[in-house]
């Protein structure tokens, strides 16, 4: 049985004054196995983010179902949903915008830990925070610093530590390295890969950078206008793309042509 199953998911934003109804996700079916890294590729506006919000249960589906280990998430009541949501955590593109500038790393991370555990004695909290920081390659001595005291790469590490705080089982990484320098990018990609391997995490990796997806993902889903147009093993999709849209994406990617030089 697959870990996460999306069956015929559709999200329609209803018509409002001045705009027509818009279907952002049109009957998407996907399944992710436990421990798998699935790359989701497509342009802005293709529905990638709406789909990830729907998986996070932040956006109700108009039609279809999302099953976590066979259990239908939309059938949960609000308390159960709050607990289930802890199993999914997100890492966003811009670590400058996604961290609260007025909270220390300790305060950010304890909130994430407590979401799962409830109240903990101070020593236990410190232990958890130190372990999280070490896991993402940060020195726990810096726990009382604020986000602005860290570099972009370190901030993204804090954001990843926060996502790991409630012991999630699925990580949704929404363009986690697009805002970073090349040399920092590789560090964060290595970190994400190690985390998936060591913690048995499943990951949905959303990106428009095919060279990164090629490296990190086991399988790739290509999305266009709210639909999955191609899905398959990463190597196969990127070397022998079947759908014209995938071919167009590959052609536009400069890094891949560089590989042939």
């Amino acid at each position: 049985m697959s870990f996460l199953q999306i069956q015929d998911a559709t999200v329609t934003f209803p018509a409002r004054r001045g705009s027509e109804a818009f279907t952002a996700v049109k009957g998407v079916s996907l399944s992710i196995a436990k421990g798998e890294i699935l790359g989701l590729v497509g342009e802005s506006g293709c529905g990638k983010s709406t789909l990830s919000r729907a998986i996070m249960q932040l956006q109700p589906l108009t039609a279809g179902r999302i099953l976590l280990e066979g259990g239908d998430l939309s059938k949960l009541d609000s308390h159960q949903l709050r607990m289930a949501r802890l199993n999914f955590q997100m890492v966003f593109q811009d670590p400058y915008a996604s961290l609260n500038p007025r909270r220390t790393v300790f305060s950010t991370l304890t909130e994430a830990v407590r979401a799962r555990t409830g109240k903990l004695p101070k020593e236990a909290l410190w232990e958890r925070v130190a372990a999280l920081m070490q896991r993402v390659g940060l020195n726990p001595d810096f726990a009382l610093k604020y986000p602005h005291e860290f570099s972009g790469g370190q901030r993204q590490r804090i954001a990843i530590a926060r996502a790991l705080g409630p012991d999630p089982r699925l990580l949704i990484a929404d363009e986690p390295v697009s805002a970073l320098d090349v040399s920092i990018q590789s560090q964060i990609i290595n970190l994400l890969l190690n985390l998936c391997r060591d913690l048995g995490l499943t990951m949905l990796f959303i990106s428009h950078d095919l060279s990164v997806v090629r490296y990190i993902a086991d399988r790739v889903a290509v999305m266009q206008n709210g639909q999955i147009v191609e899905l398959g093993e990463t190597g196969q999709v990127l070397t022998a793309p079947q759908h014209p849209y995938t071919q167009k994406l590959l052609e536009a990617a400069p890094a891949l042509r560089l590989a042939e030089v």
Partner: protein
Amino acid sequence: MSTVLDVQDLKVSFHTRNGVVRAVDGVSFKVEKGKTTGIVGESGSGKSVTCYSLLGLVPMPPGRIEGGSAKFGDVDLLKLSEKELQRIRGSRISMIFQDPMTSLNPWLRVGTQVAEPLRLHEGLSKSEAWKRAVEALREVGIPDPEKRIHQYPHEFSGGMRQRVMIAMALITRPELLIADEPTTALDVTIQKQVLDLIRDLQKRLGIAVVFITHDLAVVSEVCDYVNVMYAGRLVEASPVQELFARPRHAYTQALMRSIPALQRKGEPLYTIPGLPPDLANLPSGCAFRPRQTPERQALCLTDRQPPLVEVSPGHWAQDCPGCLIRD
């Protein structure tokens, strides 16, 4: 071939509470007519400050231009007054920035903004300037420009906004265009369209382009000549094909090795050890030494800055025994 811009030994520093930050430390490069010169480097390497200082866009204080010259035609940009610079900025030298969402004014119609350089620099009337603006929008491939010109920036997509920026930058037919990470915020397919557009217009109008980016893949696509910056200095400068075929400096090689597209799946991605140096507190000698492997570190210069040497015709690299890889 004629040289449009000739920068020699440019030095820019910032005087901060934590000491003097030498953001640009002795950078020299030339930009030829009709060619694209790339400046590549990580955040904080000084690539943007280099270009901002040429146009007087570095805030002073805390910034200060410590020395050097920038010959543009027969004037030295660094010696001009603010008033004289205003006459050049946006007419003979234009700039486009990374984020078209923040560099357009959300309160003004697109037409007002695209036509503004003409009104300021050529003193055209509003109706004439708007007529030219419609043509400029058509030229950068915006469909239905007569209608779109009356709209506001939020009615345009990211790629279309960057096209508007390009139309605005080129409407006065400048001799030099400075593009600061113009495609970093865009999707791959849109990125390609924008790069193609810049290249097309450059060919047609014969302008020189300075292209600032941290993306080596983009450099390989658009640049004729590449300058690699590290810690405020050039570590390598070369024609683009030569650079990718035979990178000579350890930093350039490390940058190329960290591109994920070039790595085999399953192996850990190569990362450059350590962090870029603190510019207020540079190590003496070779700036890349702390990030080198131990055996090479021992060879690096410690007593003086490595000078650039010509390793093969047109290909320059810092002559540090630890970092320069000769044949």
